[in-house]
């Protein structure tokens, strides 16, 4: 035994194990983080059961105050008794610790706060009534309660007794009418956003055209008349849509339903305010999966609601993709040309080596520095010039002299160009000399060799570089905060209005969305699951991009290993 121990120490085994421990800790940290994101992010969409219980917290007053709570269980934790006692709740301090549960009560319009911490020991009569309804609303967050009545123009058309779980008359009537309200709402949305948005956009263009004519001194009466004619036409269209809207609103506001929340509070809710309604306690596993899929789809394809804390993140996904695509358009040719120049054309010597080191190190320069450069140089200097030259009619409102999609893509292109250069150079370096020489020996010029032989062979390396660049750009937020993202963009940078692609517009971005919703929103507790889901999505996208790049690179190495022999 002692010999073993001495040998153990002499061989340095403990040190080896310590080193192994460092690897193990790192692995646990990465996987733990991914799991945390996955669990928190994905559970957000699961239709959780809603419980009803009585809560009687300990008080110093002689009367016990019992309140009814209806809500979803969120999480629980164990905390020391004295910590509770120090916050003024008279608990038994001889008991070491208490379990405390976080419940999501929803009903922000009824109770004020939509989350509550309850001490588990004082919760009683927990039950899961089958007819409890979860409503997702356009305003005020979720609602939990029982339906009692459905009304049309204020007159009851169906009613149920909340204490009779089997009584579905009101619920069925409600569902039918909800489908109708949703479809009308879709029409309203289309008119408000697409049609009227388009008219507003054209009106603005007319105003700018008029101003431009004025600046150029070409504001002849005929030109002005033509503009006014267009404007009159647009006004007329606008009036038409306005009338339609009034009609649709009247029709969508026809139905309401009366609900009973916790502590018998009655609430009348417009059906127009409801996005989704379900009875989680009654749903089977597969029904829940269905609802899960529905909510997940909504998350990916819908607009955000309630200051980004609910609804979907489609504009953020779209903005990220647009920005990354534009960036690729800038970064690929420049990165490849620079790499080709450095590897194939420049004289190899101390200067190219210095440049190579400098380029390599640019990848390590803090991204915020690129943001500062983009803001100062692209936006204030270049953008300001462009505005003076091409958009004088909009001044003093800046067109390109303000953060926007174009500048964000350019800034990120600058940030990621070293990645593409390095990867392409590596690819070029791996192509055996013999291949080039063969081509040259056959009489091809240097350019022909490059174009027909070298570049096609190096294309997977370029692809790798591009993918890595895209992955880096998609996750970068700090520079974007200075050069173009906003928390809520009124329209997508690509739409049906001429010139279709709006390079000067600000856009939404997944990474910034996480920062903004997580740290700037007033109701962080409610927004948290959504942020987890967004973060998970971002990580998945970036992980896939990276793994693709790694796979491509490995494939490439294998291939040239064969060529080398």
């Amino acid at each position, binding site marked *: 035994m002692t010999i*073993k121990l001495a040998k*153990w120490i*002499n061989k*340095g*085994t403990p*040190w*080896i*194990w*310590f*080193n*192994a*421990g*460092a*690897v*193990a*800790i790192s692995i*646990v940290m*990465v996987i733990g*983080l991914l799991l945390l*994101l996955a669990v928190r992010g994905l559970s957000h969409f699961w239709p959780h059961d809603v419980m009803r219980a009585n809560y009687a917290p300990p008080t110093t007053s002689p009367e016990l105050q019992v309140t009814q709570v209806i809500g979803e269980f969120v999480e629980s*934790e164990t905390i*020391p008794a*004295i*910590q509770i006692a120090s916050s003024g709740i008279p608990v038994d301090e001889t008991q070491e610790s208490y379990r405390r549960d976080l419940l999501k009560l929803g009903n922000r319009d009824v109770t004020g706060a939509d989350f509550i911490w309850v001490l588990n020991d004082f919760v009683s009569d927990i039950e899961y009534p089958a007819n409890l309804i979860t409503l997702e609303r356009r305003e005020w967050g979720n609602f939990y309660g029982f339906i009692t009545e459905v009304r049309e123009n204020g007159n009851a058309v169906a009613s149920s007794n909340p204490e009779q779980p089997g009584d579905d008359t009101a619920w069925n009537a409600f569902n039918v009418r909800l489908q109708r309200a949703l479809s009308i709402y879709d029409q309203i949305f289309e008119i408000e956003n697409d049609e009227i948005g388009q008219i507003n956009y054209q009106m603005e263009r007319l105003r700018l055209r008029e101003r431009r004519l004025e600046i150029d001194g070409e504001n002849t009466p005929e030109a002005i008349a033509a503009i006014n004619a267009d404007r009159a036409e647009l006004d007329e269209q606008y009036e038409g849509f306005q009338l339609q809207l009034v009609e649709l609103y009247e029709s969508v506001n026809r139905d309401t339903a009366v609900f009973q929340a916790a502590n018998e509070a009655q609430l009348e809710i417009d059906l127009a305010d409801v996005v989704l309604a379900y009875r989680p306690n009654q749903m089977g596993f597969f029904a829940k999966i269905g609802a899960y899929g529905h909510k997940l789809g909504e998350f990916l394809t819908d607009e955000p609601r309630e200051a980004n804390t609910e609804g979907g993140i489609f504009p953020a996904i779209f903005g990220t993709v647009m920005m990354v695509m534009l960036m690729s358009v800038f970064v690929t040719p*420049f990165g490849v*040309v*620079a790499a080709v120049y*450095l590897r194939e*054309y420049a004289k190899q010597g101390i200067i190219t080596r210095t440049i190579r*080191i400098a380029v*390599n*190190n640019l990848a*390590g*320069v*803090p991204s*915020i*520095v*690129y943001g*500062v450069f983009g*803001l100062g*140089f692209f936006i204030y200097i270049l953008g300001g010039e462009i505005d003076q030259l091409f958009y004088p009619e909009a001044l003093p409102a800046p067109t390109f002299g303000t953060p926007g999609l174009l500048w964000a893509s350019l800034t990120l292109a*600058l940030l990621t*160009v070293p990645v593409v*250069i390095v990867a392409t150079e590596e690819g070029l370096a791996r192509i055996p000399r013999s291949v080039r020489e063969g081509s040259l020996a056959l009489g091809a*010029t240097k*350019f*022909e060799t490059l174009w*027909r032989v070298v570049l096609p*062979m190096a294309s997977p390396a370029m692809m790798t570089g591009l993918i890595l660049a895209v992955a880096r750009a998609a*996750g970068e937020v700090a520079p974007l905060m200075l050069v173009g993202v906003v928390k809520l963009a009124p329209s997508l940078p690509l739409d049906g209005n001429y010139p279709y692609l709006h390079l000067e517009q600000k856009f939404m971005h997944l990474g*910034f969305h996480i*920062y903004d919703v997580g740290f700037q929103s007033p109701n962080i507790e409610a927004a*948290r699951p959504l*942020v987890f889901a967004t*973060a998970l999505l*971002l990580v998945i996208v*970036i992980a896939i*991009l*990276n793994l693709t790049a*790694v796979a491509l690179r490995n494939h490439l190495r294998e291939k040239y290993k064969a060529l080398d022999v």
Partner: protein
Amino acid sequence: MVTESNSNSPPLSAIANVEDESRLDLASDKIRFRRKLRHLYDRSANILIAAGGIGVIVAILLIFLYLFYEVIPLFGGAEFHEGSQLQVSTGDSGQALHLAIEEQAEIAMRLDNAGNIVFFGMEDGALVSQVALDIPADFTISTFALDTESNGVFSLGSTDGRAIVASYTYETTFSPVDNQRIITPAIEYPFGDDAFTLFEGASLSAMALRSSDDTLLLSGTNEEGAISLLRISQQQSLLSAFGLGGNSGGNIEVETAQIDVVSLNTQQMFIDADQRWLFVIGENGLARLMDVRAGFNGVVDNFEIEAFITENAVQHTAVRFLLGGISLLVADESGTVAQWFLVRAEEGFSLEKIREFSLADRPIVALSPEQRRKNFVAADDAGNFAIFNTTSNRKVIESRLSDSAPANFAISPRGDALLVEWPDGNFQTWEVENEHPEVSWGALWNKVWYESYAEPEYIWQSSASTNEFEPKYSLVPLSFGTLKAAFYAMLLAAPLAICGAIFTGYFMAPAMRRKVKPLVELMEALPTVVLGFLAGLWLAPFVENNLLGIFSMLIILPISILLASLVWIQLPRNFRHSIPEGWEAAILIPVILIFGYFSFVIAGPLENIFFDGDLRIYLTNDLGISYDQRNALVVGFAMGFAVIPTIFSIAEDAIFTVPKQLTYGSLALGATPWQSLYRVVLPTASPGIFSALMIGLGRAVGETMIVLMATGNTPIMDANIFEGMRTLAANIAVEIPESEVDSTHYRILFLAALVLFMFTFVFNTLAEIIRQRLRTKYSTI
């Protein structure tokens, strides 16, 4: 791929011709043309690629140059550009009491000792308007006092103890015809046009006044040394609130303070901006202060504070308040200007000399403070003019503008124009270019004694709501925060990453290594915004609730690893051999999970025993250590996580690529694997590991999102691990969107970016050079 033939390409078609005609006609027009064309393509490609490549590299260099370009003006000095000589027909009205310039520096005003005000153009000296002040018939002006240049309120005292209060204002309108700016000067009487009586029949020898929106403190002294103090308040009537009441305002109410002290030979008086202290400057530079508020609540019978503001029998020549009404500037005959302000002492206040500025060695004749910045202009009797900034303790410019003393001068509100009246009654203007007087090396990196502070300090506070604010641009707290965050991050990352790299690069089984490497690469690719969000919203509350658990983990995990290794060698040989060597890390994963969980479980009972149940509360209540939820510990974890893969990859690369024959040699000589690692591999790879650490540090220093989200972003200087910090990078992200383009603040943020850029660039370059050398070294072995 290479053999893929293309029948359209010229060489192949030429060959085809050879076969057909069995004679190669290289001189045929077609082929010659083609050859020329190919040559042309090749040449133009050469040029294009070179141009493109160099262009991209230049564009990257441009970042560096551009940052410099934005920063350099900060350290430039100021310039005087001679403007025009003005002949102003001021009448024969006598000596000037006051000279001032309007906001746009288009119009200047001159008040003389007969009570006439002349407004004239700064361009050509043309008369804009001439106003005689509304003074009573028997009123002979004996003294003048100005509140501030910004509000234009002034007072004239008479030989019979009365004073009138007036102000000069400008109204800007735009011409309906051509949209030209029209500035119309006017004289107003904000506290009524009646004279206030300070003394019955005695001549006023010095006065001071200070006004706020609707109250005015007016103080005067006479030859007998008596001091009189009035508080004049104006009840805003509805009419005057809407600007309809004309000059007379609402009801005027006058209170008189009870002052029972005598101050003989008073030369000047001042009231500070808070309307609290009355400064009385007497002979030999004796400054005496009284608390005037006491005078309205009871009787003031002594001066609370006394100090000599000049030394060694040097006479003071001019005294003025600096912008903000806190600092007193005292100029003397030896050519120096001293800044004094009240500093909170152990008991009450004391008047302290903060810093000194020297012009030339001639007596200074007058001072004029700017209205936006803490700048002032001083001129001496030899015609030397200089602009000083108090915060940066800097003489921005000194220039001899004439050979004689100026009779009077004024600096424009924006500090961009200087107007001088010469003794012969002529005027001259100078354009002043003085963009960034607030910046000096000392203001950025040394302790600075800011106004109203008890002692010199390092402070970053870039903006406030008022014009009178003294911006505090010390980069020290930000640099400190940056290094603090980087330090705690490296504390976690360096051991984990290097130990991990050693194991992965040297001991780990290849099969496991192939799985670990992509995992680390994935870790490197995790967006920092996700890490920052987790740190701020998940980790920070978790750490706060489980503080002891975190610390006990630091002890328990190493012990558990040791235990695991001990237990492992006791296991039956057969079982041990069923798992190949190099999989220790995988064996340890469950150990770490179990013991990690265990540390949180035992933390509860431990806390009850040692820390009254809650370490977090114990820290603040019993030890007095302040605790922020988002603190350096949280940042250390999150940023450490971000830095680990960077260090790991490079260090692992360095260790793994150590030539195998070195290891084999060492092993063959009988060394254990650990010995060969420790004595052979590590020394060889150490430059690589060092460069990994440097690159990791560079990343930690420049990281923005994690610090932004996981700290409170307060620029404090405290090494406490439980408090937050603000880093250079986060500061840029927070402040640059709001800063005005090309302002001092904007350029200082660019300076911060340049510092970050240089820091990381230098570190990375060093690291890169070390790595390259290592690579050549390996390749020669």
